């Protein structure tokens, strides 16, 4: 596996998943299990694509519910972002 892909795998596990947990649907949930895989057959020359299987735990009172979720994560390098900053920040 090349260095760039390894860096992205680590980034997804260490940083991105935590950023995603701030999404309303995931707030208050904690991660039980996370697996990330490069989807080589989806990998076009325009992007790197990964699939993520996430098991999160939701505590409602004394009840613990495990929820499985699947994501597709796409990386595309860019340089022009100034125009969008007014909306994105």
């Amino acid at each position, binding site marked *: 596996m090349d260095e760039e892909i390894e860096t992205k795998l680590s980034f997804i596990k260490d940083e991105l998943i935590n950023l995603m947990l701030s999404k309303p649907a995931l707030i208050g949930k904690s991660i039980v299990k996370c697996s990330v895989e490069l989807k080589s057959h989806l990998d076009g020359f325009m992007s790197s694509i990964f699939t993520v299987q996430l098991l999160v735990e939701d505590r409602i009172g004394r009840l613990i519910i495990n929820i499985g979720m699947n994501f*597709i994560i796409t990386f*595309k*390098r860019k340089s022009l972002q100034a*125009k*969008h900053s007014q909306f994105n920040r």
Partner: protein
Amino acid sequence: MKGNESFRKKSKALLQSSNEVFVYSTIIPHFSKVTSDQWIAEVYFADCGSFSQLGSGQETILALSDLSALNFRMSSDKIDLDANHLRVMARKIASYHAVSFAMRVRQDPMLENLIDGLIPFHIQSETQGDLEPYKYLCPISFERIFEHVSATSKHQSSKSFMEDLNRFKITLSTDFLGLMEGFLRTDNHQFAAILHGDYYRNNVMFKYENCDGSEAPVDLRMFDFQEVRYASVVIDLSIFMYMHVHASLKPVIWDELLEFYHETLIDSLTGLLKCEKNDARLEPYSIKNFLDHFKKFAFYGVCVSIHSIPWMASAEEETQKISDFFEKDMHHPEFKKLLKVCGGVDVSERIVDNVKHASEKGYMKIF
């Protein structure tokens, strides 16, 4: 993102991915405030910028729920879609376009903000440069068409088709990019909306249900908004119709599909505006105005289809070669040779049929 810096610049990939994040992070969340329609997978992260762990470069990152886990999948046929798939595509894109129209009718200032947030993506531009795939590759596909028509007497029997084709040859050699850029104009018509921009089978996933013992598509989700732009709705419509309506189906479904799109558009508009179909504000969007407008812009979809069908309809090995040339050297003479023969006579017949159909419908009277 893969591909070297030069390739990304030529294909304007950097600009495209920036616009795509804007769709996921801002445009569709805003659209979703006014309607319960869903067009995309749920977005968990969409941002562009520097991420220290990924190095110094700028990245765009999208994290979307996996549609395949929600029982959405791509159609099994890459090119020929049946009437059910085509209707689902028409219905979904109509409801998406309707939001822009409703915002314009209501004079919602947010529409201008959303349009202004999209970096214009030109085909011909002094500042951005010309879009090279259209500049170099479309003319090759049209050369293939001219050569196939010249070698096939049955295609020469229609005088009006041959006249249209000969007139188009002049436009192709003198101002093809100007013609394509002209299709993106928004200043002289009321049918501009925030589009998908590249609305065809590879960029949608369908949900299926069993109906009378067989499976039929009932819904879809779109993705890959890299060519999003504010332009005529005919861009989205003509691309998927010319890509996916087979020659045998065109006499049966073409006009019906346009009417179905228009009906859905008006239904969506009346729902969004909470008005009746005879509301005076909807007059600019009448079926007559829509069909007249479609006629002036539909050739855009023909050009995209004759460029894309040879890639999609060829054998896997040829498609891989095409992709490799496209990424590494789109000016390679072997690439030109391949584009003229890939997929064989079937592909030549298919792309010629699209041009003949456009001629029969009067879509080529614009040049």
